[in-house]
């Protein structure tokens, strides 16, 4: 075997050092934390862990998390479809500025995302007195949790669809319209099939973030056990009460959700390689 290496290949010792460093780094920062979650959850055996995710408070938290995601994801799908249609299919001034505004929630700290709704709907906020008079609760109640979750997941679907629709142009849609198809018909039979994988990709990431959001939801939730606790908030309460098995059991469930998300994401990237990986 030839000992000569190709000039664009790194020497073996360099490869070994780089792979070693990368391995150590990923084990310390990504892999061991995940192992910790399952190890701590099972510390007192499987029955104890299962009990912690089946008791009443845990069930209420799981239910609230599912409700939140079930409202947030369709809302962001509708917004994402409208925004990407308007941005990709027409020319208008200040387009890059509009895209920046849609991306804005990603640059805002989750805590600030929660705070803004407290300032608008809280007891001291703009609509606080009016809401109080009409006995409508938004902050420290489910509507606030949903609003804060919509804010932090706002750009996911739109930023996935905008580049995809821009890339596909308007020729097919114009052809459909010139043959007499209505706008909705054109969307359903021409545009939707073209963007479906990108849409699914956005939905997947949006859903993962909606179920896992902590900071924004923690500010608006009020932490009422069994009522306004989502799964991540339930994890926090159990952890702070030193119920580590309980905290890590619920965390394990969320970790499982993350793994499922990553697997589906990898599959979607196989189906549609242009879905750019690594967008949060």
């Amino acid at each position, binding site marked *: 075997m030839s000992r000569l290496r190709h*000039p*664009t290949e790194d020497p073996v010792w*360099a490869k070994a050092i*780089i792979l070693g*460093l*990368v391995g150590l*780094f*990923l084990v*310390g920062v*990504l*892999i*061991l*934390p995940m192992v910790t*979650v399952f190890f701590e959850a099972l510390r007192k055996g499987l029955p104890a862990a299962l009990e912690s995710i089946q008791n009443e408070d845990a069930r209420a938290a799981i239910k609230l998390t599912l409700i939140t995601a079930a409202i947030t994801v369709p809302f962001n799908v509708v*917004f994402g479809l*409208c925004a990407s249609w308007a941005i990709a299919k027409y*020319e208008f*001034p200040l387009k890059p500025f*509009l895209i*920046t*505004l849609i991306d804005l*929630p990603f*640059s*805002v*700290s989750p*805590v*600030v995302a929660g*705070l*803004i*709704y*407290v*300032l*608008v709907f*809280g007891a*001291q906020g703009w609509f606080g007195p009016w809401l109080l008079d009409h006995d409508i609760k938004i902050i420290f109640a489910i509507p606030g949790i949903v609003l804060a979750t*919509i804010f932090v997941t706002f750009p996911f679907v739109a930023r996935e669809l905008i580049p995809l629709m821009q890339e596909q142009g*308007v020729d097919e849609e*114009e052809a459909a*319209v010139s043959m007499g198809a*209505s*706008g909705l018909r054109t969307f359903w039979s021409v545009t939707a099939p073209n963007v479906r994988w990108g849409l699914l990709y956005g939905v997947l*990431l949006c859903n*993962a973030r909606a179920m896992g*959001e*902590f*900071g924004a939801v*923690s*500010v608006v939730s009020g932490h009422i056990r069994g009522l306004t606790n989502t*799964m*991540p908030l339930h*994890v*926090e309460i159990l952890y702070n009460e030193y119920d580590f098995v309980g905290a890590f059991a619920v*965390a394990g469930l*969320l970790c499982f959700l993350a*793994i499922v998300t*990553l697997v589906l994401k*990898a599959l979607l990237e196989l189906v549609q390689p242009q879905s750019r990986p*690594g*967008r*949060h």
Partner: protein
Amino acid sequence: MTATVTSEIVAARRPLVRRRSAIPGFAVTMGVTLTILSLIVLIPLAAVALKASEQTFPEFLHAAFNERALTAYRLSFGAALIAAVINGVFGVLTAWALVRYQFPFKSLVNGIIDLPFALPTAVAGIALATLYAPNGWIGALFAPAGIKIAYTPLGVVIALTFIGLPFVVRTLEPVMRDLASDVEEAAASLGASRFDTILRVILPALGPAWLTGIALAFARAVGEYGSVIFIAGNMPYKSEIAPLLITIELEQYDYAGAATIAVVMLAVSFLMLFVINAIQAWARRLGQ
């Protein structure tokens, strides 16, 4: 011919919607987009600025830059910067390994890089706190040397490194893949050592993407809350991050104070957006 002339005249006049599109639905979709954007994002964000402006200017300055707030910014921005630099170093190595090397479980490693995007931050927080605590698997390795990681600013850096990890790797990967290996071959055939080739040919080509990744990781880390509060220790003047200070002031019903710190953080976020856009514009110019 006539059509081109007409379209040139139309273009010269620069109307609001340059080419009347044949596709219907602009008014509806744009209307929905702007309405939702205003109701969910823009108006509530304006509430923060309005709340902060209810104070007199000296009050605002005190709320924004008192000693406790300053130490919180220092920790948030300092730790975010250190974490972004750590991710810059390990991110470039990880991306290089993923693009250039073959090794076992490569696709698994590739998939797990995105874990910080998918794992809820609170889960990451309690896992890292347990792992790096003095009696945790990794914390116990450092405890005999007197190094405490969890519940100190060092723990904050660890959590922010976790949260920013995918940004550098994922912005570098496509650029590395497009890197023409013939330039490397040319450098090598002209007698450059591998080290010289990396230093003078590869790294400069990666520069803009690398900086973008680091800036994105920094921007994400500055506002991070969930993964940090469990490992930070949260001692005032010591290990308290700026977002935590906002929640503390909210709990004390000091809405103006909370809004003030939020305004400072938003200002930094917008500055980061501007910087990231500038880096990307620079990268595009370099690429042409």
